[in-house]
């Protein structure tokens, strides 16, 4: 049993995958000697060499485009995008090539490419360093989109994503990189929760709060606070945004009758809209209130001195919980 951070969990996951499969490559800007700006790839180049841990030119379309070529050649590239806001130059390669090539080939090629993206705000950064753009990719058929929220998931989900024959966008909640948890290293992938399964991280009876990535911790804090007032919140960590684990969500909502979805991304057409629409369609008669959405505002991510106002926090979650309960 070792105590690890979320960043370390990914690092260990990458290492495990690289050890067990020589085709696994790590590539991106500054992933080599520096170990990435968040040190997630720390030590990998030293141990696996420049041939497997590749500092690329400063061009994201090039990163994804060449990763596709490497995948066609039989490699399993794990690409690091330095910050959420810098994935857009690669958008075309991701959406038109990475996502669609398998269908184009009628299944005759697979692209086991993982795109790791540190996501979200709360670290006091400058513009473009705090965005939550998961909805773009979750809306894109052909991709799978997952988000880890804790060190143990980080460790396993990294390995699972790499093992998947589909392209996976793996979001890492950057402000939780330094959160710690115990990892039992004797556990293997077989012990892990399946990659595309949501997890009830706290049981409750009054209302369900669904969150993912950085917001899971916030939701848990809200649940603790609510419990003091006698309200029992069930917290669901969605983990996989595409595919979305509807059975877990449905079971929870059928039990509690109420749902609040929380994310940092702008609400308009954010993940919450899909969750709300789908849950409402499937649990129409179970819902005692409309699904409430708590998200970032429909503005560009603000300067960091405003981010505490912009980001959903415990209070805004509880406000939505109260509005739902009072409905």
């Amino acid at each position, binding site marked *: 049993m070792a105590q690890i951070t979320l960043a370390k969990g990914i690092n260990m996951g990458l290492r495990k995958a690289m050890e067990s499969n020589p085709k696994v490559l790590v590539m991106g800007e500054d992933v080599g000697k520096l170990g990435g700006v968040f040190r997630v790839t720390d030590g990998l180049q030293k141990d696996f060499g420049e041939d497997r841990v590749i500092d690329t030119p400063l*061009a994201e379309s090039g990163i994804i485009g060449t990763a596709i070529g490497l995948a066609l050649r039989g490699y399993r590239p794990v690409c690091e995008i330095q910050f959420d806001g810098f994935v857009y130059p690669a958008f075309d390669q991701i959406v038109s090539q990475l996502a669609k090539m398998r269908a184009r080939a009628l299944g005759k090629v697979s692209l086991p490419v993982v795109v790791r993206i540190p996501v979200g705000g709360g670290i006091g950064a400058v513009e473009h360093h705090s965005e939550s753009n998961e909805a773009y990719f979750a809306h894109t058929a052909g991709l799978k989109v997952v988000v880890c929220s804790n060190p143990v998931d980080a460790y396993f989900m990294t390995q699972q994503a790499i093992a998947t024959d589909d392209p996976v966008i793996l979001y890492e909640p950057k402000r939780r990189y330094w959160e710690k948890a115990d990892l039992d290293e004797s556990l293997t992938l077989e012990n892990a929760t399946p990659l595309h399964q949501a997890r009830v991280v706290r049981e409750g009876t009054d209302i369900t709060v669904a969150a993912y990535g950085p917001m899971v911790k916030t939701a848990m804090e809200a649940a603790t606070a609510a419990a003091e007032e006698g309200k029992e919140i069930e917290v669901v960590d969605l983990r996989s945004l595409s595919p979305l684990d509807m059975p877990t969500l449905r079971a929870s909502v059928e039990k509690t009758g109420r749902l609040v979805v929380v994310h940092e991304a702008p609400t308009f057409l954010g993940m919450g809209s899909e969750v709300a629409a789908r849950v409402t369609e499937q649990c129409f008669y179970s819902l005692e209130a409309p699904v409430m959405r708590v998200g970032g505002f429909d503005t560009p991510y603000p300067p960091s001195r405003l981010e505490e106002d912009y980001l959903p926090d415990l209070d805004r979650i509880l406000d939505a919980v109260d509005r739902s309960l009072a409905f």
Partner: protein
Amino acid sequence: MTDSAFADQAARGFRSSDRATPLVRPVSDEPDLVQLLTPEGERVHHPDYDIELSDEELRGLYRDLVLVRRVDTEATALQRQGELGIWASLLGQEAAQVGSGRALREDDYAFPTYREHGVAWCRGVDPLNLLGLFRGVNHGGWDPNEKNFHLYTIVIGAQTLHATGYAMGVQKDQAESAVIAYFGDGATSQGDVNEAFIYASVFNAPVVFFCQNNQWAISEPIEKQTRIPLYQRALGFGFPGVRVDGNDVLACLAVTKAALQNAREGSGPTLVEAYTYRMGAHTTSDDPTRYRLSDELESWKLKDPVQRMKAYLSRNGIADQAFFDALQKESDELALHVRKGCLEMPDPEPLSVFDHVYAEEHPLLAEEKEQFRAYLETFEGSH
């Protein structure tokens, strides 16, 4: 010839450092075109590039040119008759494609655009595979690894990065293969193509960038993309660029072979600009009379790649009338195969839209498929 223009380039500041010196020489401007066969079909020689081919090989190249053009003509006809949604003709670019395509070894890998029917032919891809895409029964769908010929890529320039990445993989495998990326003159303006140049040069990847400058990107003439000859783009990235007469199948073969060989030997990328002409419309949906004068086409007709080779073969007694007759027959049969195969191509099953999107399970998509199946069944009585 050792004191070529590239030597000048190097003297003027290319850091050769520890990298292998590229061996392909960019041609200087006078003449700025590598040519081994004049438009009249006369064999000429070039100090840097030459090629010795047997008569059989020469006839083989001519056969390729003829058959490729015939497939193209047939496909255009099929489109006119409503059997294809659209067709992108390679008319005029046969030599560039056959020359470069025949330069490839079996273990080399090609990344095409949407117009590389001639390259597909050289790789042994059944033309019907190509027609499937233009008919709309699939988006390509052949197995790229079967013939080392990637799927057609429609988004301009995207495949140049795939080719570069693939070449990086070849390099990691320490395999002795090379990769070729096809693209057009218009494509050179895309960020992706320039990024491919950067990745390829920085990693010294074994890739040949084969640009068919057919003078047009739909309605835009080459001047809208560059103010200098395209092969010189490579100078800015530190690898050699060479312009070859794209209507001369021998020169295209020789130059591409040399570039591929350099790539295999660790000398990194080369840009080959095949200077040619799009003799037809951009696609069957296009109307070139809106933007170019027929004079231009007429002048290029004099440089026709197929005629040129035929003149050479005839004039030098390399092929006789029997050969041409047999080829005519083969060509007719091929056209029939294409036409028949096209007409017989079944439409895909409605439910197949859900297939092959993912390699692994996706419950929501499975559910959607199930719902659609059930929905379709409600019509079953009425059909």
